[in-house]
């Protein structure tokens, strides 16, 4: 847990809606992302974080619009690079609570490389991926998490015929240290998990099932399909792997929680100023 969450910076008096900005979301009525927005504000309130010490970073997509709807600092960057902005920010400003948020396309298609390396690097930030198994913003193409036989992807008529990307398995394989799944349609279940993810030191991955009611109405069924995972949270990567590899994608909960130390670039000032570096150039 980082500095900003300590003593003087907490804000016990704020409630969830104090974390909302007055900007109206562009989302379609019924979009799962509304639930994520609600859950996140509730978590921030629960953690009593001061909005001025929180930065929410995103890429591009429907889901990536979320920073503007929050009363925290925000950065709506370019497609696929949210984690890298978050990394730079957190390394430079360890006192802040950094949350990175976005979609499955942003995070696992164009942003896949940064996802891998964020898991390895273990910088203390929380990554909330709103997965709707498609590209919403560009009006309905397949994403890495789309089912191989999803016929309606507009660039993959007849199906993608590719193995879907399993974010939790790949996350674990790449070294993610905190892995959870929540449902965007069930804020009450999601809040404690998101809070725990934010609290957890190092990189925390929160996979959110967040239905797109416009381009895949079948996702409305997700609400009924999700369930709490039957296994308790493990810190054994092997166990977690076994569980996740046979997971059908609807088990909710904190599915892995390791104890790897967060990325820490030790840099202690050893000289007074730039002038002290000049000696090395003397002939």
């Amino acid at each position, binding site marked *: 847990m980082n500095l900003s969450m300590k003593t003087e910076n907490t804000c016990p008096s704020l409630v969830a809606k104090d974390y909302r900005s007055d900007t109206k979301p562009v989302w379609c009525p019924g979009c799962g992302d509304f639930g994520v927005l609600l859950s996140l504000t509730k978590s921030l309130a629960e953690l009593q974080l001061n909005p001025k010490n929180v930065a929410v970073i995103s890429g591009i997509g429907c889901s990536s619009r979320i920073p503007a709807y929050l009363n925290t600092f925000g*950065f709506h960057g370019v497609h696929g690079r949210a984690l890298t902005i978050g990394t730079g920010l957190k390394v430079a400003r360890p006192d802040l609570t950094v949350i990175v948020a976005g979609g499955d396309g942003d995070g696992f298609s164009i942003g896949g490389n940064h996802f891998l390396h964020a898991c390895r690097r273990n910088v203390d930030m929380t990554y909330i991926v709103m997965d709707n198994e498609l590209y919403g913003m560009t009006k309905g193409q397949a994403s890495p998490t789309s089912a191989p036989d999803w016929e309606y992807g507009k660039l993959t008529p007849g199906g993608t015929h590719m193995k879907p990307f399993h974010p939790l398995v790949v996350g674990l394989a790449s070294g993610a240290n905190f892995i959870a799944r929540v449902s965007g349609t069930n804020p009450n279940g999601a809040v404690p998990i998101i809070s725990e993810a934010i609290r957890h030191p190092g990189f925390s991955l929160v996979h959110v099932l967040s239905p797109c009611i416009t381009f895949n109405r079948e996702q409305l069924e997700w609400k009924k399909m999700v369930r709490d995972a039957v296994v308790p949270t493990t810190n054994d990567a092997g166990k977690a792997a076994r569980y996740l590899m046979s997971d059908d994608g609807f088990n909710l909960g904190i599915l892995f929680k390791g104890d790897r130390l967060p990325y820490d670039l030790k*840099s202690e000032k050893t000289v007074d100023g730039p002038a002290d570096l000049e000696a090395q150039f003397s002939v």
Partner: protein
Amino acid sequence: MTEQSISITMTGSGGSGVMTAGNMLLDAAGRSGLFGIMTRSAGPQIRGGEAAAMLRLSNKPILSHKDQFDILLGIDWKNADLFASEIVLDNNSITIGETGIPQAFTESAGRHYELSVAEIAKQIPDGRANMVALGVAAKLISIPLSAIKEVLTKSLLKQKGEGAVRSSLEAVEAGMAAASAIPSIPAPTADPEAAANNWSITGNEACGMGAIRGGIRFVAAYPITPATEVLEWLATNLPKLGGKLVQAEDELASINQAIGASFGGVPSLTATSGPGIALMTESLGLSVASETPIVVIDVMRGGPSTGIPAKSEQSDLNIAVFGLHGDAPHVVTAPLTIADCLMTTQWSVYLAEKLQTPTIVLSDQALGQTRAVIPGVPDAGYEPERAIAVNPDKTYQRYADTENGVSPMSLPGTESGQYTADGLEHTQSGRPSSKAEDHHRQMNKRLRKIKGFDFGDNWAEASGDDDAEIAVLTWGSSFGAISQAVEELRQSGQKLRLIGVRLISPAQPERMKKLLNNVKKVLVIEQNHSGQFYHYLKAYYDLDAEIKSIAIPGPLPILPSQVRQYLRDWSQI
């Protein structure tokens, strides 16, 4: 004090240690009070292939090689002919080495002295041929043994022990002895006093030091030749000041990490070369639109594509100025000399911070990887002056349409200062907007802050005759050889004006007009194929004079003699 200088190249095949000898010679020359430069050239092998260390030493600071080398000293001649186009000799030049000197050199050089440094080395226990060569070179250039001794001790004692120092010294002495058979060569007179204030530094190190002086405290790194040493130098030195360097997974990550850190209020930088800058242009646009300052150093190499990684070329001007999609005003600078890498980088940090925009610094391999002995460069004093929102309240607007276009930035942690930075077009408060009025307002503001800024005298270096009718215009490392040529011609009575442009973008047509007051003819010289700077001048400056473009792509540096030739041809027209 007139300039006296001497040029020497040492060559050797894989493992011969020619670079070590070259570096030691430069260091020793520096200690003895000379100035100088050393460039390196190597064959295609990744490591340990044939190599050449090319030095020029002088009693005054120098910016480029001469047209010819006075001395070619072969540790051996294996594959030395590979360097024939780089090592130009004439009949005043001498070559020294074992038998079998490549024909290319026998044809051009005046005299040849047979002397096998390898044979001499064999006589000495643990003697190495490159140390013998060092001795030969030192003797010819009149570098005192004491200076060599200091250098040997400094570089060998700790790592390799006293024995290594002793045997090396013995080899050096043997080399010196052998060289006494060679008629002595007029060498520059060193001023031992000067040494105290002199620096031995590469352009890449100078960029790193300039960055730190400018206030950079976060660096994101992805290695690429020939920019890597900027990053490597920072990796060791930045932490000493509490700064941080993160090795990123790729250039998309590195530039965005820098943007993230800068959003947090920490002046940030990355360095790369052509292929990397190409990957960064999307996010350079994000830096423009979100008004998050960053500095990107592009140490240019031969292009296009992977091109010629280890050789210099000034061919990234186009991408640096025009490589962003949409209309994306930003700043592009280019240091003119190795020493100038310090000031230009420091100034660039200042400009980025002041204007909340990306600043691209166009250095190049010739500056970056050349080591020079120069007078120590004082701190130029530029510090980050980012406009910060003070006590923002509910009316705070991150992208307020201010008079000078610069809008105070609220840093995370600031009470009531929350906003969302955005690469989407936005209102003054930062809310996404596709309205014409918002778009036009923000476009105008982003342009105004840069176009309206007073860049002062740093924008260019002008020298030569005020009443000259002919001017040479250039940028980047070509400035060195051109200065040399212009000085030579002026000393022979020709009136010339020389302008080295340091601020590539935004263009400064008014300032240029003043500088070119009496000028009728302008020769634009640069090291690329399409005349990028020349076309840029045509597009963004209104020059009354007749303009001619001389554009010669890399990999060979432009030589003073070429410049003199062009100037002679041109002035006769």
